[in-house]
């Protein structure tokens, strides 16, 4: 909506779009063409939107991260499905002299029941309305009863009489009303297909009754069709007069924002929604809304926001479309709505617009004046309303109320208060040694701190800007530094808490200075060797992995570990946890041998303590990873299997965590070419992932990729390809089309194409994979790029494009030489491929290719040397390289023989 004022353009367009979507697709072009002639710009936008609607499988169609179950319906998730709640308050059996029967209806203010006199005094059937808001103080009750007296005196044939009333159990006020058989006015008009004039007459009658009430100084405040009934013989009956007033909390106060929640937003005047003083003008407005609805078949504004602040914002941005225009925009534009639009254009438009002016002072001065104008219209006399402007923007109104609209800022603020208090308390509960001692004092300080923070982020100070959670955190951190300097222990705990929140939010760079400061304070106040200091070290050390500050993290965690060992003894769960955290960091740093020792320690403590649970199951899995890193495949295998066993027993066979050791086990077995054994765990992991994360999650893509790649390795390409294609789709949808992960299933797909002797198809997918990797590593220097180039080279080679292939292999080799140790498998593989390429070039060029022969031989030889260095004698790679060299040595002989037998 680039140029439109917010709201107006879109709402109009939205309604057009909704209409368009209701049409059969075949009829849309015709309608668009018509619109094109009348409103070309709108038609263009509409066409854009129709194309936007046609987008399939958008990420919007699944909830943010699909839950269990493929239909995206979280309710199907079993354990997390909240039951449907139909519950309403159970009514008391009796109220005063009335026996309560079945429920007749339910509205914003309360529930209506049929009731009859139970004391046998006389027979009388009534409707009893029990209100939602309790009046539970003696003062409120007195006021309620006084109000009820006033209402009972309101005697008008068109106003439903209040027969009785009181305060029931739980302080809920109730009224007994005359029972009326009637339909809401709009329903009555629609059902009876009433003419425009008839509708106007009905509303005029309503106005007369409302005017009578106003003369007795009773404002209705909640006029809406469900309160405006029409009996079968066509007489209007008004319900609920003055009840909104009864519900007001404080008589001295104008209707507050809180009070406005009792109203029906669609019919409430802007000043009610904004909590300004209420006068009879609110009833004028509501009658204008009802008239609009009677004429156009819809309320002018839908206003479904539930929060007062949101509603206020909405109201300030509304622009009224005259009822006749609304009719013309209707979907099924038929003769009837055209005729209606003609009838409404002019007087009735003007009357409605005047009743609906946002400024009370610009509306009709009274309901009587509105009634009089309707009467004039019915008599075909000039109406008063047509002297003013017909269109009115809310702009000026909104400007006057800007202050009110900024109320959202408080929200972000309280949010922070909540977080840090709880965190603080959680930490205390966790058993920080001196926490109990300082708790009383700190909680006082914490409350002061929060109070201050509230002032800091007062909308007045922030000029109404809405603060994000992060900004509030930042404000909090500054405040801690400055104002809590006198109380370093509290300061440290709060900093630790905020730092942990930042870290958990992924705000690693922001978290670090806070945690550093907390550690510094703890060191100085508890000493460097205290458990409190260890806690800060532990938190900061666990963060450092994310910041690539491995060495520092290692020191911190080692020190925390040492303190805990000394203070808690070597066999303590906290010590084991420190070992595990250190192990994770070390493995991340590539120091798997050291990581292995840490996990061994953690697991030994767990065994000594007799612990077997989800946590130790995870440690077993991590232990397996480091064992695999150091080449102990059989140790890794049994550790994964133990992890699976422990998790199954302690966390359940369908625990999502199981997917990790299952996938790790499967991939390990795949590496050992034990394809048959690898398949079951990978299939099980896939099923778990599917059930846990759903079919749109990146983890599902990964599980598909694992299984697909396994099947490709086992030579089952027809089965592998659908899985790999799906993995590409899942990754693309979940991570965007440029994520480097997509390259993995693509490469496996390409390998399948190569196996099936379709090099040009392989080349296409390999090139796509390479492009993705080049995007992820723009300097072009990373190993995955070398791998990608090598794959592209093999496809080119198979296509006979030797020069292009040679270039790819040389690039790949150069990259790997820069990145890796000289004796690395990828280098050897690139050398083999390059040598193969050169060999063929030499073969093609004949004697002129002496250079190729020499270099090919050198490359094969180097590759063989690397393989011999890496693998035991007899390894397939060594055989492969040896065979290639032998073949190369035989080439000149073969060529010489060829030339001898076929002389030119």
């Amino acid at each position, binding site marked *: 909506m680039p140029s439109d004022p917010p709201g107006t353009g879109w709402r109009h367009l939205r309604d057009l779009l909704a209409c368009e979507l209701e049409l059969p697709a075949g009829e849309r072009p015709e309608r668009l063409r018509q619109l094109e002639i009348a409103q070309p710009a709108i038609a263009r936008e509409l066409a854009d939107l129709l194309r936007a609607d046609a987008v399939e499988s958008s990420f919007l169609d699944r909830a943010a991260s699909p839950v269990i179950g493929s239909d995206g319906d979280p309710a199907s998730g079993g354990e997390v499905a909240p039951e449907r709640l139909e519950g309403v308050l159970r009514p008391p059996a009796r109220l005063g002299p009335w026996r309560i029967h079945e429920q007749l209806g339910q509205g914003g203010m309360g529930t209506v029941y049929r009731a009859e006199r139970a004391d046998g005094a006389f027979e009388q059937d009534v409707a009893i309305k029990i209100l939602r808001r309790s009046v539970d103080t003696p003062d409120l009750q007195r006021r309620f009863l006084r109000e009820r007296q006033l209402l009972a005196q309101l005697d008008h044939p068109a106003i439903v009489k209040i027969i009785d009333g009181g305060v029931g159990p739980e302080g809920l006020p109730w009224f007994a009303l005359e029972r009326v058989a009637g339909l809401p006015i709009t329903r009555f008009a629609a059902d009876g297909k009433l003419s425009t004039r008839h509708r106007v007459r009905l509303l005029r009658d309503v106005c007369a009754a409302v005017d009578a009430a106003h003369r007795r100084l009773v404002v209705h405040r909640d006029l809406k069709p469900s309160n405006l009934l029409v009996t079968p013989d066509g007489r209007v009956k008004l319900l609920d007069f003055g009840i909104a007033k009864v519900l007001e909390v404080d008589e001295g106060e104008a209707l507050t924002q809180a009070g406005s929640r009792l109203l029906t937003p669609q019919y409430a005047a802007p000043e009610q929604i904004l909590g300004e003083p209420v006068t009879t003008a609110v009833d004028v407005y509501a009658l204008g809304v009802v008239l609009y609805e009677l004429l156009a078949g819809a309320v002018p504004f839908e206003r479904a926001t539930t929060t007062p602040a949101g509603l206020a914002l909405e109201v300030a941005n509304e622009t009224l479309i005259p009822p006749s225009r609304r009719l013309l925009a209707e979907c099924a534009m038929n003769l009837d709505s055209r005729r209606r639009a003609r009838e409404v254009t002019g007087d009735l438009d003007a009357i409605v617009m005047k009743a609906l002016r946002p400024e009370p002072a610009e509306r009709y001065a009274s309901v009587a004046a509105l009634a009089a104008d309707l009467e004039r219209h019915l008599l075909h006399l000039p109406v008063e309303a047509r002297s003013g402007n017909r269109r009115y923007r809310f702009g000026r109104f909104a400007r006057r109320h800007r202050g009110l609209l900024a109320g959202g800022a408080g929200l972000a603020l309280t949010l922070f208060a909540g977080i840090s208090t709880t965190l603080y308390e959680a930490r205390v509960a966790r058993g920080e040694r001196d926490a109990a001692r300082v708790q009383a004092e700190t909680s006082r300080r914490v409350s002061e701190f929060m109070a201050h923070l509230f002032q800091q982020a007062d909308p007045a100070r922030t000029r109404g800007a809405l603060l994000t959670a992060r900004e509030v955190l930042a404000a909090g951190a500054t405040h801690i530094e400055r104002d809590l300097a006198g109380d370093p222990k509290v300061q440290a705990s709060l900093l630790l808490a905020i730092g942990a929140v930042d870290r958990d939010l992924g705000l690693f760079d922001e978290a670090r200075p806070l945690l550093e400061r907390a550690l510094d304070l703890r060191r100085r106040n508890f000493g460097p060797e205290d458990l409190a200091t260890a806690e800060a070290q*532990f938190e900061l050390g666990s963060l450092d992995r994310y910041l690539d500050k491995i060495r520092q993290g290692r020191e911190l965690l080692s020190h925390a570990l040492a303190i805990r060992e000394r203070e808690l003894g070597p066999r303590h769960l906290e010590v084991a946890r420190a070992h595990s955290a250190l192990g994770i960091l070390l493995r991340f740093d590539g120091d798997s041998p050291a990581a292995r020792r840490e996990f061994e320690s953690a697991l030994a403590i767990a065994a000594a303590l007799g612990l077997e649970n989800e946590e130790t199951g*995870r440690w077993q899995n991590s232990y397996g990873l480091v064992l695999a890193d150091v080449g102990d495949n059989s140790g890794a295998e049994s550790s994964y299997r133990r992890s699976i066993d422990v998790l199954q027993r302690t966390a359940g066979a369908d625990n999502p965590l199981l997917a990790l050791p299952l996938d790790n086990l499967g991939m390990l077995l795949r590496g050992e070419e034990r394809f048959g054994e690898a398949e079951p765990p990978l299939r099980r992991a896939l099923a778990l992932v599917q059930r846990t994360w759903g079919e749109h999650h990146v983890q599902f893509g990964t599980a598909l990729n694992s299984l697909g790649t396994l099947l490709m390795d086992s030579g089952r390409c027809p089965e592998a390809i659908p899985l790999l294609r799906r993995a590409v789709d899942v990754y693309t949808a979940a991570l965007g089309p440029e*994520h480097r992960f997509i390259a993995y299933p693509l490469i496996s797909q390409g390998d399948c194409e190569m196996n099936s002797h379709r090099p040009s198809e392989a080349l296409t997918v390999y090139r796509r994979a390479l492009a993705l990797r080049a995007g992820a590593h723009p300097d072009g220097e990373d190993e995955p790029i070398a791998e990608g180039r090598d794959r592209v080279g093999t496809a080119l080679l198979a296509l006979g494009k030797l020069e292009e292939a040679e270039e790819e292999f040389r690039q790949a080799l150069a990259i790997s030489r820069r990145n890796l140790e000289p004796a690395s498998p990828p280098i050897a593989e690139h050398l083999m491929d390059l040598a193969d390429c050169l060999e063929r070039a030499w073969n093609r060029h004949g004697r002129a290719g002496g250079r190729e022969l020499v270099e090919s031989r050198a490359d094969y030889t180097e590759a063989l040397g690397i393989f011999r260095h890496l693998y035991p004698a007899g390894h397939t790679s060594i055989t492969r390289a040896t065979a290639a060299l032998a073949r190369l040595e035989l080439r000149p002989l073969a060529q010489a023989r060829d030339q001898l037998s076929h002389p030119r």
Partner: protein
Amino acid sequence: MSHDRDEQEPAGVASQRSEVTLLLDEWSRGDAGAFDRLMPLVYRELKAIAARQMRREPAGLTLQATAVVHEAYLRLVDQSRVQWKNRGHFFAVAAQAMRRILVDHARARQAAKRGGGHAAPSLEDPPAVESGVSPLELLALDLALDRLAAADPDQARIVELRFFAGLTLEETAEVEERSLAAVNRDWRTARAFLHRELGMAAPAP
């Protein structure tokens, strides 16, 4: 909210539950302040549940936004006492809180741009996309939702309820106290709006 610990269910869950239920009551009875008091409770619980999921080092299970919201509902709202209307209010708060959590996180991930390393895809180390949506998509959605809210707050809220709290159309209609047809219409047109804003529509022929 440490990474390596499992917190027991706090003893205060029951009292928290009745507090939330009470605040929902107060809100539906018109106390606007109840919303502001509710927000931190809900946000906090969402974060705690999310942290429990994500804390599983080294597994790094990613966060399932909608599951988190529903779990929070079960933990925070007294099922026997809540009125259905209040249930709707809860989801309105939770969807908003969830949106904020995910957007904050996505922003952080974008800023950090970490994880572009070499590792092949593994369940061990999934990229940090907690919503099943890429951080960039999420941030773009956040901005587009703001624009939608400026044009029509109802529609933006429906998207929040559907996308961030994972409500079905039927549940959304129930929560919004509107007809299924009206909610469906608003959803479908909002979806088109967002697709257009996010540049997902096919170009004009």
